[in-house]
C-alpha cells in the first residue's frame, strides 16, 4: 500500500535533486529548469497530502503554484532573452555586477 510517507519521501528526493540543480548549474536556462523541478516536487507533495487527508485545498495550492510557474517562465524567459541580447551569453558568471 502506498502511503503518504512514500509520496513525501519522493517529494523530498525530488526537491533535493532540484536543489542540487540550483546549486550546481551555471547556465541560467538550467537554473530555470531546476526551479521547475523544485516547484513540481512541492506540487506532488500537495496533491498527495490533499488525497490522504481528503482535503482539496492541496490541489488548489498546486494550481496556484502552476500559475506562478507559468508567470515565472514568461517574465524569466523575457529577462533571459534580454540578457542574451545584451551580453551574448546566458552563463551565470556573466552576471556579476553586484559584486560586494
Amino acid at each position: 500500500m502506498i502511503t503518504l510517507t512514500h509520496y513525501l519521501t519522493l517529494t523530498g528526493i525530488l526537491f533535493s535533486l532540484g536543489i542540487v540543480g540550483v546549486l550546481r548549474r551555471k547556465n541560467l536556462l538550467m537554473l530555470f529548469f531546476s526551479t521547475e523541478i523544485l516547484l513540481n516536487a512541492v506540487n506532488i507533495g500537495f496533491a498527495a497530502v490533499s488525497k490522504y487527508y481528503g482535503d482539496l485545498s492541496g490541489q488548489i495550492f498546486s494550481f496556484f503554484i502552476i500559475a506562478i510557474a507559468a508567470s515565472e517562465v514568461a517574465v524569466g524567459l523575457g529577462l533571459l532573452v534580454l540578457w542574451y541580447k545584451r551580453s551574448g551569453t546566458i552563463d551565470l558568471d556573466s552576471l556579476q555586477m553586484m559584486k560586494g
Partner: protein
Amino acid sequence: MEKYLYVALFAPVVGSLFSLLFTAKKKNVITALVTSALLLLSFVSSLTLMFAVHDGLTLHVKLMDWISAGNLNIPFGFMVDNVSVIMMVTVTLVSSVVNIYSMGYMMHDKGYNRFFTYISAFVFAMLVLVMSDNFVGLFIGWEGVGLCSYLLIGFWYEKDTASWAGNEAFIMNRVADLGMLMGLFLIYWQFGTFDYETIFAHAGSMNVSVVATIGLLLFIGAMGKSAQFPFHTWLADAMEGPTPVSALIHAATMVTAGVYLVIRASDLFSLIPEVGHIIATLGAFVAVFAASMALVHRDLKKIIAYSTLSQLGYMFVAAGLGAYWIALFHLMTHAFFKSLLFLGAGNIMHAMDDELDIKKMGGLFKVMPYTAILMAVASFALCGVYPFAGFFSKDKILEAAFNGSNFYIWFALFIGAGMTAFYSFRLIMLVFFGDKVYKKLGFHPHETYPFVLWSLLPLGILSTIAGFFEKPFEAFVTRVLSKYEFSLSHSTEVELIFLTSAFVILVIVATIYKYYKGGFSKQIETMPLYILLKNQYYIPKLYEVAIFKPYYVLSRFAWKQIDVRIIDFSVDLIAKVFYKSGQESRKMQSGNLSDMLRWMIVGTVVLLALAIFYRPMM
C-alpha cells in the same frame, strides 16, 4: 491686570525671537528698534503693574501645569507682589535704557543683531526669575540668566580672554548652583513642594537646623550669582563682555539675583538669624575686600566691577541683618547709578578706542563734558553724598549695622565707604582731569551720539532723586517684607549720618586735592600692600595653583590613561570587529547568483535544523 503681566513677561521673548531670525544676517537696525520698543512696552506694563500693586493688588497666575510626575507637581506659575514688581520695574527700566544705549554703542559691531537677541533673552530669563511663584521657576530663570550671561561675556568669542571669561563665569556659577540645587532638593524633601507660600507658611514649624541648612545652601547659590567671596573672581573677568552688558547684567540686574533670593526667602532667613549673621559678616568682608582691590586698579571697568562687588556686599549685610527692605532699596538705587557709571565708562571706551587704562586718559572733561557730569553724578550717588540716591540707601545700611550692635560690621562698612569715595574720585580725577595723557598716545576722543546721552538721562535723574522715595518705598515693600525696627535714638542716628557723610566728603575732597596736585608718586607702586592689592590678594593665582593645575593634571591623566587607553580602545575594538567581519564577509557578496543561492540554501538548512531540533522551553 493679567494681560499686563503677560505683556511684561513675554514682550522681551518676542523681541528676542524676532531678532533671532536676523542673527545670521547683516546688521539690521530694525532688530534694535523692535527689541527696544518691546522692552519699553515691558517696562510700561511693569510700571502699570506697580501702580496696581500699590493699590493693593497681588497677582497670581498659573499659566499651565509644567511638570507632573508622581507627587511632584510644578505649575508654571507667576506672582506679582510688592517685591517682584520692584525688581520688574528696575530690570525693565535698566534694560530699556541699556538697549537704547547699545544701539549707539554696538553701532559698528558684527554681532549687532545677535546682541539684541541675547539682551532680550536675558531680560526674559530675569523676569522669569523674579516673577516665578516657586523655587523651580526661579531656578529656571536663574539658569537662564546664567546662560545669557555666559553668551554675552563671551560675545566676542574670537577673543581668547572673552571666551575664557565666559567659561569662568559659567563654571563658577555651576559650582555655586550645585549648592542651590541641593538646597532645592532639601526643600522638596522637607516640604514636599516648591511653592513659596506653602514653604514660608510651614517653615516656622520645621526643625531649625534643617532650615539653617536650606538657608546656607541657598546662600551658596546666591554667592555664586552675586560673586561673593570666594566666587568673586569671575565678575572682574566678566568685564570682557561689551560694556552695556556689564552695565545691565554684571552691575544692575543679574548679580543682584542673589540678593533678591535672600530677600524673596526672607521668611526663611528671618527664622535663622545665625545664618543671617554669617551672611552679613561675609557681606561686610566683601565690601572692604573688593573696595580695597578697586583702590589700586588701573582698569576702568574693573574698578567699577570691584565697586559693584563691594556694593553687593553692602546689600548682603542689610539682607543678613534682616533689613530686607533696605537691601532691596539699595539694590534698586545701586542699579540706577552703577549702570549709569558703567554706561559712562562705555562712552569713555568708545571715545578712547576701547582703551581701558585710566592712567592713559586724563583731561577728558573738555572733550566729553556730558559724560563727565553724568559719571560724577553717579559717583556722588555711589559714595552716598547728600542728596544723591546712595546717601539714603547706603547710610541706612550703616545705620542698620550699628543698630544691631554689630560694630565691627559697621566699622568695616565705614572704612568701605571711605574707600569707595577714594576710588570713585580717583577714577573721576584720573579720567576727566589732570594731564591730557591721551594726546601723547595719539587718541582722538569725542563725545558720543546725542541720543545715547539722552538715553542716559533717566538714569542720571533717578540716581539723583531716587533717595527721596525712601519713605513711600519702605511703606510699599514692607507690606510683604518684614519691617525693620530701628532702636537707635534720633540723635545717635543724626550723629551717625553726620559722621559718615563727613568722612566720605572728607575723603572725596582729599582725593580731589591730592590728584589735582598730581597724584601719588611712583614709589607707592613698589609697596608690598600695593602689590598685594594689585594682584587681587593673589587669589586668582591661588585658584590656579590649588584648583586649576591639579584638575588639569587629573584631566590629562583621565584623557591619556582612561579615555584613550580604555574607553577609546574598547570603542575602537568594537568598530574594528565590525569592520573586519564586514571585510571578511564581503567575499560572500560575490555578486554571483550561484554563490547567493548557495548561501540561501545554507540558510534554509539552518532554519530547517532549527525547526526540527529547537524545542522552546515549555
